[in-house]
């Protein structure tokens, strides 16, 4: 008897006992379905997260911001040296390897006037590298350039929402924009960025970029700050390689500590945050997976139970097969393959159920779902292992049956 024949016998057994087979596999079906559904959900969220990071500058972002120390007793000297400066940004550029973009930033609120509209808005003064850093595009006009920075030109670039707020449907490019008492010229409007973690949701995770009002940091410093004031609010950084984030971060902190003589800054590190998120995701994944595996085990116990319950019914069959020359091994393999065929078919049905279920949940909750091949392999593989483990005992019992006893059984 070869493998194909054993498998065929397994299918014959299923065909003859639809009801029993369905009962037998129900546990496996539900187990596999729940594994697929939970993995599909977490995989979907994960894919969404990845896309969010990709569309907002990638995984290589880092930043330094002002964070005054908790101790209140500072010397005048220390107080005088506190806070990030443009020189800090220069020093990082010159002394720390591992960053390919260093962008100083000042963000303050001013009274802004465009035509008849006058509102208080946050002005972000930056360097042109910010465009690449945050993957910003330009819909109209152009972005800030190096020569704007070099000459301290009074030019501004607007996010799409800002442009609409200030100028309505008119083209803002070339129009004046008064910040405080300084007049800038709008030279560009950025492309609208939209991202939502859920489907059909109005929430836009990228909206803050649409609300940017950017000017060159040199122009801003010249026109809005005093001659001795070179304080900035943040230094945006981009790593050459995300893997080397810890080394670069250490070097950065080292440098600033020496320059300031005090820990007056904080560092955010997107790569680290992503890794932390992944670790949390893994905990969820494992929890869900454990639930699925418990369901599969229960399914396996059901299989054993039903195989044993139908065992007396099949004793005569085993006796006949043995009388006709089946060896114990052949009977063993027949029963085991039968259990495997039943569980793998159950896994197939469970996969289909799980996929439909997942898509249904995704639609109902407006969550994006994703399926990966690994999930299918894991689900079917674990079902096969369950079939193997729980089919073993009935198979051993059948194979050890004494032919005379089995034949006499009525």
């Amino acid at each position: 008897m070869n493998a194909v024949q054993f498998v065929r016998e397994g299918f014959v057994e299923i065909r003859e006992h639809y009801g029993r087979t369905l009962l037998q596999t129900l546990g496996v079906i539900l187990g596999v379905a729940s594994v697929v559904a939970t993995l599909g959900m977490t995989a979907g969220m994960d894919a969404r997260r990845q896309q969010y990071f990709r569309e907002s500058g990638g995984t290589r972002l880092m930043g330094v911001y002002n964070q005054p120390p908790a101790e209140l007793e500072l010397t005048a000297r220390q107080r005088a040296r506190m806070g990030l400066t443009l020189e800090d940004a220069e020093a990082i550029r010159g002394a720390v390897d591992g960053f390919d973009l260093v962008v100083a930033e000042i963000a303050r609120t001013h009274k802004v006037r465009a035509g008849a509209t006058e509102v208080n808005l946050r002005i972000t003064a930056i360097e042109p590298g910010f465009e690449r850093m945050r993957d910003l595009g330009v819909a109209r006009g152009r972005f800030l350039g190096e020569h704007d920075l070099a000459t301290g030109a009074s030019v501004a670039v607007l996010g799409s929402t800002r442009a609409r707020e200030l100028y309505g449907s008119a083209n803002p490019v070339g129009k004046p924009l008064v910040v405080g008492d300084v007049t800038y010229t709008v030279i560009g409007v950025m492309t609208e960025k939209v991202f939502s973690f859920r489907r059909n949701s109005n929430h836009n995770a990228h909206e803050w970029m649409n609300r940017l009002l950017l000017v060159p940091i040199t122009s801003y410093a010249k026109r809005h700050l005093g001659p001795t004031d070179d304080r900035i609010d943040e230094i945006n950084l981009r790593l050459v390689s995300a893997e080397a984030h810890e080394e670069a971060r250490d070097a950065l902190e080292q440098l600033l500590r020496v320059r300031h003589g005090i820990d007056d800054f904080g560092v955010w590190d997107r790569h680290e945050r992503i890794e932390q998120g992944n670790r949390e995701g893994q905990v969820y994944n494992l929890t869900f997976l454990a639930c699925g595996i418990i369901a599969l085990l229960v399914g396996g116990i059901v299989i054993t139970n039903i195989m044993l319950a139908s065992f007396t019914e099949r004793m005569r069959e085993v006796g006949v097969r043995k009388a006709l020359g089946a060896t114990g091994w052949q009977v063993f393999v027949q029963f085991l393959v039968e259990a495997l065929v039943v569980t793998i078919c159950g896994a197939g049905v469970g996969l289909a159920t799980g996929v439909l279920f997942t898509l249904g949940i995704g639609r109902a909750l407006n969550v994006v779902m994703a399926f990966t091949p690994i999930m299918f392999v894991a689900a079917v593989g674990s079902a096969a292992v369950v079939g193997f483990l729980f089919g073993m005992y009935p198979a051993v019992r059948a194979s050890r049956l004494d032919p005379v006893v089995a034949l006499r059984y009525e």
Partner: protein
Amino acid sequence: MAPLISVENIRKVYGAGDVAVEALRGVNLTIDRGDYVAIMGPSGSGKSTLMHILGLLDTPSGGTYLLDGDEVSNLSRRRLAHLRNRSIGFVFQSFNLLPRASVLRNVELPLLYSGIGRRERQRRARGALELVGLADRIKHRPNELSGGQRQRAAIARALVNDPAVLMADEPTGNLDQQTGSEILALFNRLQQQGQTLIIVTHDQRVASCAQRVVQIVDGRILREQKRAA
């Protein structure tokens, strides 16, 4: 040439100690190739036990059993299964066809366990079914057949691996007079073709067909009648 079957002082005890039951108390029997032997006796005489031992379904508690000149009472279960598969064909009182399989698949079963390929299996199964006159029923399920047809399917299954001996346990027990006679006619024809037959029965008509009639009472052979061929 050694006789096909030779048993000496075969004993079979069920249970142990006080509750031990002696089913066979020293049976001696020799069966040659081409013999047609009827084993008769009252219920509980041990005739079924004897046939189970001769058919290698059961092992004796004592004595020797030479099948085709080889001692078989101490063989492994695996070797016994192979011998049952290739040397012995069984026919049961209640047919014992697998209800879920077609007649053809039932008859193919012993060949399946011999590891014979599908094409050859079907060819030989069809041949055996033709021999018993059931060639037009191969796709049917056992429950779609009459009792006599079922028993003929079972006989085809027993013969399909060309066994040295065909053993039947009350083959006419579940059949009416007419159908029983048809089965006996089939046995006669097989005997004429040289098939060795051992039949356990109550049926006097079987005894009148067989060349040798062995009477068993209380676990011993009481007497044997031989009929001139």
